[in-house]
């Protein structure tokens, strides 16, 4: 019997959740966004970082429809956000940077109203799930004005998700909130991402962006100056530090290692070198052995996104403080 082996090739086309092309915007003659283009495939967590005034919020507000587009095009799931704005807005959920609540209503009423704004009938099961997951249950009966700042932030996230958007935009959702809420929020964001929601976020907290995002774009002066997977961005642009404990102390640094910005410590028994991106630690160690250096122990340390960010934007400042 002749067996026919049939191979089926399945081509999976991943749609872009967001596609921005040549986006431009100026305010009173000053450009805020200058010819920005990038795309976010469906299912991704994308981090848009940049210093204050880089154009991140302007970009997000153009995507959401709060700010008119100067030039260029924004498409969400294939729909043009100007011509087919009812489709795009239905598919987007936005957590704005500024806390915006309607003081006339309770959490429950406001969530029901927001679902209706998006043309989606109230789903009590989903509404209650959001209320519980975001810890809003004890405050349900309160009108918004009585809620604390942290509670208002949580409510804003519930509000952005109440119509089950396919792309969730978080514009600095954790600004000014405590550590516990930040962790809870990011866990929740990961969870909804795993369930299929694409995430676009900006944050002050670079460590969080590094942990959360599949890809990162860094904006500066209205332009995208870096756009890579988080891992690649850190790998390509950050320096690794190599710390070597030597069997015999060195009186001076060998000239062949000068290009690695070496330094000697502890009477010449510890040698520290910067390993540039693309340079293999193995080949450097081999070179050292050939030079007769005997290594007792070694340690490597890689700089993170924060250093990459500072390097690219030229922004200094304290930890967690300069990104957005």
């Amino acid at each position, binding site marked *: 019997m002749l067996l026919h082996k049939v191979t089926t090739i399945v081509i999976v086309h991943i749609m872009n959740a967001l596609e921005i092309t040549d986006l431009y915007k100026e*305010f009173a003659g000053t450009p805020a966004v200058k010819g920005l283009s990038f795309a976010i495939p469906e299912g991704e967590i994308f981090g848009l970082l940049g210093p204050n005034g880089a154009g991140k919020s302007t970009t997000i507000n153009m995507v*959401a*429809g*709060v*700010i*008119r587009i100067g030039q260029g095009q924004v498409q969400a799931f294939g729909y043009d956000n100007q011509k087919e*704005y*009812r*489709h795009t*807005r*239905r598919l*987007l959920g*936005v957590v*704005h940077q*500024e806390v*915006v*609540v*309607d*003081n*006339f*209503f309770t959490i429950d*009423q406001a969530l029901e*109203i*927001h*679902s*209706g*704004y*998006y*043309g*989606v*009938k109230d*789903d009590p*099961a*989903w509404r209650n799930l959001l209320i519980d997951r975001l810890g809003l249950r004890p405050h349900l009966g309160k009108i918004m004005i009585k809620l604390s700042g942290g509670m208002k932030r949580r409510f804003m996230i519930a*509000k952005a998700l109440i119509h*089950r958007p396919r792309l969730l935009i978080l514009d600095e959702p954790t600004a000014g909130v405590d550590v516990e809420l930040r962790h809870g929020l990011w866990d929740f964001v990961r969870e909804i991402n795993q369930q299929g929601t694409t995430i676009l976020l900006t944050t002050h907290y670079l460590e969080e962006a590094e942990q959360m995002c599949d890809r990162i774009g860094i904006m500066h002066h209205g332009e995208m100056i870096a756009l890579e997977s988080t891992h690649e961005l850190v790998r390509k642009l950050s320096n690794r530090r190599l710390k070597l404990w030597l069997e015999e102390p060195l009186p001076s640094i060998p000239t062949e290692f000068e290009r690695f910005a070496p330094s000697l410590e502890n009477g010449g028994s510890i040698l520290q070198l910067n390993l540039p991106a693309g340079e293999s630690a193995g080949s450097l160690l081999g070179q050292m052995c050939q030079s007769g250096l005997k290594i007792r122990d070694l340690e490597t340390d890689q700089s993170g996104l924060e250093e990459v960010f500072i390097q690219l934007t030229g922004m200094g400042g304290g930890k967690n403080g300069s990104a957005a």
Partner: protein
Amino acid sequence: MVPQPDNRFYSWLPFVTLLRKEILRFRRVSTQTLLAPIVTASLYLFVFGATLGDRLSVLEGFSYAQFVIPGLIIMGVINNSFANTSSSLFMSRYLGGIVDLLVTPVTPPQFIMAYTLAAMLRGLLVGSVVLVISFLFATLPWEYPLLAALMAMIASFLFAQFGLIAAIYAHNFDTLSVYTNFMILPLIYLGGVFYPISILPDPWSSLSYLNPLFYLIDGFRHAIIGVGDTSFVIAFGVSATIAATLFVWAAWLIGKGYRLRS
């Protein structure tokens, strides 16, 4: 089997929800939005109806109470329709809540109609209560009740549009109060609520014909008592034209996102 959530898009739902929210908003602060204007109008009714009503006559064949009550009703309709759209939209702009609407699929026509219908409801509700209270002070002839209802609806529609326009152009609460205190109030008082403009000497009498509110007030009164300073057709035509013009203006501003989207 777990039922799937109904996640479909209902195109009418954003409008119904915004309308419901606007009605809930004024109901939530009903002391300020309903009770206060009703008390004010009742005081007017008491002063002009109970105290002066039978002692004065500015129009032959009618007591002063019968003359003034239609004007007081339409004044309640006008003030409250304007106040509802202007305060709601301006507060949304001022406090930033408008962003919540701008990111939704609510269309400009839905936006305008939801705000307008809620404002009309508030204005007509206040007018209706004033009307019921007026039964204590005078009996009105009710010559053309349907035309009176039509004029009240035009008045509330017109001032709902004016409220939207004022809320968009206003920079702060002070500017917004200019519309109320320096435009609407003088135009109402000089538009024939408390006296027929025919008793004014010239040029005040002629100038009063330039007051757009005169046509709303006179048209409404004409429909109720059967006589007016001008013909009902003119009063209706001028009022409807102004209402349509303001609607086009408001629709243009909101469609364009003027001062709503930067």
